[in-house]
């Protein structure tokens, strides 16, 4: 690992972000990454956060057109309420703040505590839960579906609407709509090594893969002998389309878990596109790359999000963050 000591990995990363991105405010001590111009008058603030180790999510998505602030926790550990309360206070212009929360017990509990505290301080807070991972059965007997790749779509699209000056209610509604329209499925070709543990979180022989993994190094639902890129695309896209039956065009995220070469991700995208077209699903936009990662895990995930004209317009709207940048 390219680290000093496990204890300082998150702080070191923030110092490095500060050095590389003078266009952001990076508060290393309080573990906050903020738009430099926050609070923007009249604009709803968009705050997200979660465990570190998923970079560029979330700090790499802070900037005009996307997040107002990100709260990075320890590796794979939800941040603490103090961070979110400070972030909310820093980005609230009076128009209120939307918390974008990935559905993990830790994130939910900490963001909920923060929402309570922030409201006590007079900030209007709404919350959207992202729970797009179809590998997890969404029932009262589980913690519910995990939040994974759809987080990027939620943050981009809600961020674009917030930048247009929409109300907290409208920004929250579009965020919910995006989450409800998006599903993901992920596959691991190797386990994760966290700095603190120093060895792989589970044992995955090189000729096997894990289907239905999350983004925290947890094993998946099922282990199988290695499959081809085409077979994985068949499996993943079918799993997604079992739960989401898009009647119109979709956004596609072909996401790397961190250690899979971009060349292979593009090759996988070719197979994902094949399966979608076999299933009659038209693709409006595609994003290929390492966006919602799991440290040094090899593998990939597919996220499909059905869009109407308004969502597509908001997706195409300008964004200026370290990791996503287009338009102006």
């Amino acid at each position: 690992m390219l680290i000093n000591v496990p204890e300082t990995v998150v702080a070191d990363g923030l110092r490095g972000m500060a050095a590389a991105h003078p266009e952001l405010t990076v508060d290393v001590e309080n573990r906050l990454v903020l738009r430099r111009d926050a609070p923007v008058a009249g604009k709803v603030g968009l705050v997200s956060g979660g465990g570190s180790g998923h970079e560029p999510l979330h700090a790499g998505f802070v900037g005009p057109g996307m997040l107002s602030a990100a709260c990075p926790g320890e590796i794979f550990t939800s941040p603490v309420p103090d961070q979110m309360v400070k972030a909310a206070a820093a980005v609230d212009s009076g128009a209120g703040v939307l918390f974008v929360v990935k559905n993990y017990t830790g994130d939910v509990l900490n963001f909920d505590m923060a929402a309570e505290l922030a409201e006590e301080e007079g900030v209007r807070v709404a919350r959207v839960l992202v729970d797009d991972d179809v590998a997890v059965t969404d029932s009262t007997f589980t913690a519910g579906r995990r939040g994974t790749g759809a987080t990027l779509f939620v943050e981009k699209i809600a961020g674009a609407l917030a930048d247009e000056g929409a109300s907290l209610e409208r920004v929250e509604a579009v965020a919910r709509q995006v989450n409800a329209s998006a599903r993901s499925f992920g596959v691991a070709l190797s386990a994760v090594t966290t700095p603190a543990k120093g060895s792989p979180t589970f044992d995955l022989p090189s000729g096997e893969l894990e289907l239905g993994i999350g983004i925290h190094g947890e094993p998946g639902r099922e282990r199988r002998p290695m499959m081809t890129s085409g077979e994985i695309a068949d499996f993943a896209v079918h799993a997604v389309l079992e739960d989401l039956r898009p009647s119109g065009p979709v956004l596609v995220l072909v996401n790397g878990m961190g250690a899979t070469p971009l060349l292979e991700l593009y090759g996988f995208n070719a197979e994902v596109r094949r399966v979608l077209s076999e299933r009659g699903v038209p693709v409006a936009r595609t994003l290929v790359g390492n966006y919602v990662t799991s440290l040094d895990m090899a593998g990939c995930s597919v996220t499909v999000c059905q869009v109407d004209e308004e969502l597509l317009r908001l997706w195409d709207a300008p964004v200026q963050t370290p990791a996503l940048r287009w338009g102006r």
Partner: protein
Amino acid sequence: MLDTDFFRRWMTATAAAVDREADRLTDLDAAIGDADHGTNLQRGFTAVTAALGGESPATPGAVLTLAGRQLISTVGGASGPLYGTLLRRTGRALGEAPEVSTGQLAEALGEGVAAVAQLGGAQAGDKTMLDALLPAVQALGTSAEAARDAALAGAAATVPLLARKGRASYLGERSIGHEDPGAASSALLVGALVEAAGASGGGGA
């Protein structure tokens, strides 16, 4: 009766136990979670020890609410709010009394555990920290040793369970066969009661 110093010793003994067992907790979490439970609690209880060193809470209740606040502010994850709530609620239930009886502690801890159940929505048998905490509260009426043994037994009994809450629930059937890390750490917390009592030379909490 248990005085303020007893509660300080309880927290210090828990911190020491967590330090000692951090790798085991993390390994348990690697099997069915995300391999951070040990480091999470280590970070949290280090902060608790530091805060208790810096501030001088005057009552048993104040020791626990301070500790709970520290956990919430430093742990993160699922266990931060849950353990934080456990100690804060227990502390609040103890009120302003300068000394409390074992019975009062058992009752207060019962309120704390109920708050954890409410916050996390878990029930007995869901393969969480509650599976160690609930039997421990019952047994604390008898003695700290009985509570420790009940917590250990409760933690061990999570092995065959299928997880219904927290990250382990994502694994479905594959969560079976592993001890729940939060139940294991709860057994450490309860076991530290015995150490805290022993360290004063007294005859148990």
